[in-house]
């Protein structure tokens, strides 16, 4: 055993004058050492001395990081029953042995001292922000029986629609994948409601309007020669962050030619600092920039003719301000180009965009020329560009650039994502539907969030941010019971104060392993395992197109009396009256389900040899290269086992790649045109233009004079960063914050308000006010303040509590893009004043 003399201090040293024997005599063994009993021997002797004790046994299990959606494969190191290290799995295609700064913190999450230790029920009927719930421990049987009794009672009363299941980060078939069948068998349109409208539906639906697919893209960055990034936080938060940085190291340090990068954002961050060109744009105007780039690509003849098409006589007639006859242009894979030009683009000059965006005309022109003349190139965007009232238009304008340069499905371009070869489930939900499930009154009820409803958000995928306010208002009805999985909208939704009222009158079930704002309002807490204790599958988010799915393998037995959410759902299902209960008895448990999924690998083994459940557990990942589609010079091809040799027919392209009415990339969106009446009624948009990418001024609510943008940063550990001390200590490196996260303010803006560097300030909007400390930052636009969406939790654990700045959601107005349903997180304007 190694020893350490912990009594030694400077004072004692002065008393004892330090001989070796006196200094090393304590012998306080720790039980952890691999060395030997020693005091102050020369260091070189220690290294050569054989260890007396047995070496500790270290076991490595496969898992997937849980701290962002990227799904990095990780190796979890456990020695003598203690998990002590996490590294990226070398053989995992996303992590490739690397980690982002969050990855190593997983061991802390496992041993978080604030974790819930088992199921609990509330004893204090009063609910409020600072009201002690009076939780008492209960058994799992009591917890599950309580939920089931409640659901059975609602169902008998014909009110099953008043049960909602809300989820955030769904991982795979064994958790969120179970929810759809649960909703169909039980009978509720509100099982389940995802968080995608509070995530990035703005990009999904903007793309759907043009290419008909409606998914996040996979990107072939490594083969691209230019990347044009609009508000994506590529080196801070954009998924898959770890892999993005690996790619960055390659395209910026190894690849010949070096990939050029232009990054557009509202403040200087590491992405902009690392890019060739940083454009500090006025919030909400990214669409204007994209339109001007498209304008230049057309006027200067830089478009990709093999994909877009050309003038029949080869003469470019796109001249600023001049209309063009559609008959002169022969389109190939796009539709509506000339109409778009005539209605919108012809006037969208760089000079025009400079006025709107607050950028220099010369920079817009240079960006456009570089993007238009560098192949392959990708234009990518996320929430920075589309979390505004005009988000769908901004997103369409940006995505249209990919069509103009022909990067859709091209090498070095962007594509779709294939799913894994899972085997079928052991049981089919349709066989277990009773008459209530098929024809019950719930079938006539709208969703609580009015998704898909003409009175609400007809074209959206989800509208979780509306659930709390709608239930509170009883519009369309009041919910009774809400269960949450990996979601905390009482905190993450804009103006969450309304949710606090809404949840006072609801029966709340939380499944998080950790304390949080939802749990504070919960009637039942059914804590999940943390990720290092789970057996859980997770197919990849769009990554590089080819299919990939992975498995979390428990590193240790659960530390506490917790239960995997997928099994909680199955156990509740077993307790529901009628055939639904039988369905879940056959399904039995999530491991059984996972074993059935893995049977699909038997006939379609992965590239790494994974061909069954056991090998999946051992390697942690199944994947199969390559991506099967590729567009080459305007021809769509499919992989035949040897190469991209099969040429797709127009009909096959329409079925598989451009799922629009025309089977082409529709610059004139047929899908939006179909809903023109509704769009005109709800948005007031010009009936001729609403289906084209076009410029519209964003609506900035809040009543203030400064834009407020609250990005997620690298240490945002999927909602837990605020209670991880190491994450707190490294949260905001750009401003030098150690334990303090600052509000970035341009010095001129602060001085004009009499605010000193480092002073405590207040931010005020129409819905609330918060406080925090301001830091002067010249990299911040003078009309914008920026701070990370992280702190201001009031029930997240001992380190999160009361940490400034306050939560941005409390001053963010709940405003959404009417088309995409995207929550407009970055569009509220606030007032800044000394506190």
């Amino acid at each position, binding site marked *: 055993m*190694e020893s*350490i*003399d*912990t009594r030694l201090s*400077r004072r004692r*040293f002065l008393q004892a004058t*330090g001989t070796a024997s006196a200094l*090393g005599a304590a012998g*306080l063994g720790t039980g952890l*050492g691999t060395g030997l009993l020693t005091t*102050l*021997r020369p*260091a*070189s002797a*220690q*290294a050569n001395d054989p260890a007396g004790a047995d070496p500790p046994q270290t076991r490595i299990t496969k898992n997937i990081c849980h701290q962002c959606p990227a799904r990095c494969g990780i190796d979890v190191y456990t*020695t003598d029953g203690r998990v*002590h290290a996490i*590294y990226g799995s*070398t053989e995992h295609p996303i992590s490739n*042995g*690397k*980690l*982002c*700064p969050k990855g*190593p*913190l997983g061991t*802390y999450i*496992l*041993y978080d*001292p604030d974790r819930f230790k088992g199921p609990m029920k509330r004893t204090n009927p009063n609910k409020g922000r600072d009201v002690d719930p009076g939780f008492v421990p209960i058994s799992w049987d009591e917890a599950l029986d309580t939920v089931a009794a409640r659901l059975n009672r609602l169902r008998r009363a014909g009110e099953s629609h008043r049960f909602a299941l809300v989820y955030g980060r769904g991982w795979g078939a064994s958790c969120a994948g179970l929810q759809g069948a649960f909703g169909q068998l039980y009978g509720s349109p509100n099982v389940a409601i995802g968080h995608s409208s509070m995530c990035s539906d703005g990009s999904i639906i903007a793309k759907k309007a043009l290419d008909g697919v409606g998914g996040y893209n996979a990107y072939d960055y490594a083969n691209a020669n230019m990347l044009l990034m609009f508000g994506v936080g590529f*080196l801070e938060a954009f998924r898959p962050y*770890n892999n*993005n*940085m690996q790619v*960055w190291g390659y395209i*910026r*340090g190894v690849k010949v030619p070096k990939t050029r990068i232009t990054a557009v954002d509202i403040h*200087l961050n*590491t992405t902009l*600092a*690392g890019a060739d060109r940083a454009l*500090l744009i006025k919030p909400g105007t990214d669409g204007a920039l994209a339109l001007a780039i498209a304008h230049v690509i057309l006027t200067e003849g830089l478009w990709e003719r093999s994909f877009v098409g050309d003038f029949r006589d080869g003469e470019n007639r796109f001249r600023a301000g001049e209309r063009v006859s559609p008959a002169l242009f022969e389109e190939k894979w796009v539709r509506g180009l000339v109409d778009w030009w005539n209605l919108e683009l012809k006037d969208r000059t760089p000079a025009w965009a400079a006025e709107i965006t607050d950028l220099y005309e010369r920079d817009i022109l240079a960006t456009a020329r570089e993007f238009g003349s560098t192949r392959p190139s990708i234009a990518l965007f996320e929430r920075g560009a589309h979390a505004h009232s005009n988000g769908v238009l901004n997103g369409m304008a940006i995505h249209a650039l990919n069509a103009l340069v022909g990067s859709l499905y091209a090498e070095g371009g962007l594509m779709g994502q294939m799913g894994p070869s899972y085997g079928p489930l052991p049981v089919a939900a349709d066989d277990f539907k009773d008459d209530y499930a098929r024809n019950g009154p719930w079938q006539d009820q709208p969703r609580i969030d009015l998704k898909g409803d003409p009175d609400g958000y007809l074209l959206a995928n989800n509208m979780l941010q509306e659930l709390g306010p709608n239930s509170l208002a009883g519009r369309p009805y009041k919910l009774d019971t809400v269960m949450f999985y990996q979601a905390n909208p009482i905190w993450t939704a804009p103006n969450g104060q309304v949710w606090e009222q809404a949840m006072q009158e609801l029966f709340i079930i939380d499944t998080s392993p950790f304390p949080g704002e939802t749990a504070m309002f919960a009637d039942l807490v059914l804590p999940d395992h943390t990720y290092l204790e789970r057996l859980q599958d997770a197919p990849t988010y769009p990554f590089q197109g080819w299919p990939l799915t992975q498995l979390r393998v428990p590193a240790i037995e659960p530390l506490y009396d917790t239960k995997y959410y997928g099994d909680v759902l199955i156990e509740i299902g077993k307790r529901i009256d009628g055939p639904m209960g039988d369905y879940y008895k056959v399904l039995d448990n999530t491991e059984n389900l996972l074993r059935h999924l893995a049977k699909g690998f038997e006939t379609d083994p992965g590239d790494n040899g994974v061909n069954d459940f056991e090998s999946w557990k051992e390697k942690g990942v199944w994947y199969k290269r390559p991506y099967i589609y590729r567009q080459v010079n305007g021809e769509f091809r499919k992989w035949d086992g040897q190469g991209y040799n099969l040429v797709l027919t127009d009909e096959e392209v329409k079925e598989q790649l451009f799922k629009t009415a025309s089977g082409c990339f529709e610059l004139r969106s047929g899908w939006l045109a179909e809903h023109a009446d509704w769009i005109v009624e709800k948005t007031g948009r010009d009936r001729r233009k609403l289906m084209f990418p076009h410029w519209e001024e964003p609506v900035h609510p809040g009543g203030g004079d400064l834009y407020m943008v609250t990005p997620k940063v*690298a240490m945002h550990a999927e909602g837990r960063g605020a209670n991880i*001390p190491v*994450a*707190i*200590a*490294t949260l905001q*490196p*750009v*401003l*030098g914050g*150690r*334990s303090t996260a600052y509000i970035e303010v341009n010095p001129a803006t602060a001085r004009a308000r009499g605010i000193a560097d480092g002073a405590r300030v207040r931010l005020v909007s129409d819905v609330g006010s918060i406080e925090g400390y301001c830091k002067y930052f*010249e*990299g911040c*636009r*003078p009309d914008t303040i920026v701070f990370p969406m992280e702190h201001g939790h009031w029930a997240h654990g001992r*380190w999160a509590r009361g940490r400034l700045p306050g939560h941005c959601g409390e001053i963010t107005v709940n405003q959404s893009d009417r088309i995409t349903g995207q929550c407009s997180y970055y569009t509220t304007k606030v007032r800044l004043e000394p506190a």
Partner: protein
Amino acid sequence: MAKWGMVIDLDTCTGCQACTTACTMENSRLPGESWQDVLFYHEGTYPNVKLMWFPRPCMHCENPSCVTVCPTKATYKDPEGGFVLMDYNRCIGCKYCQIACPYGVRFSMDERAFVKPDIRQVFPSGDGRQWNPPYQAPQDDPGRGIGIQPHGVVSKCTFCYHKVSQAPAGVADLDEDVPELKEYVPACVRVCPPKARFFGDLDQPQSTVNRLIADKRGVRLKDETGNKPQVYYLSGGATAAVPSLRSMAAATVPTGPFSPPQRAPDTGAIAAHSADWTADQA
């Protein structure tokens, strides 16, 4: 015997701090005790603002000032691999080394907790160490400053001695992409997503680290101190570069902190910021 060295490519470093957190967890460091820190700077006026960052481990100097000033020989240069290590049993916490180190990479954590509440109170140690987190790594070697330290001592980066010292003899480079070697690679190098870090033997001419230093003009920070760091920085493959004293004969280089200061070529903004770095750790 190897002379281990690290090369950090500033052209591809993304400032993500994965090195910082991987080191913190591998070596059971306290929040804010960032042996491997990344320091951020900005200059200029909107909209022409330059944002920079600088990853900063212990330089494991060939001629370390910290060793020279240590009154108890608690900090020492390990002849086997060139590590600069700490013996917690000898350290009296006088902090001379902290003051002498030109790079600000030595830490004493007793005065205050960076993040409150103090995690040491949450995971207290029963045996007089500063704390005892349940996720603590198994390696423990107080004679080399490995494992959780007692109160009243200074701590520092070990170059992940507990990993590197186990590497197969004679290996030129510890590359995390070689599966057989990854367990011997320092945590900060192993996780680095853009592969901006390289670790190898500076005494082997064929090592990748030596090739990178030559091809991409590796420079050492504050060369004028004569400390001769074993950490090199790459910043661009172009002809223009920050000159380094590496090219000068050993005799012309000051050999210790008490040697007469010799005016080095201007090393630019990086050196100008050094005072801030030291202050940052205070």
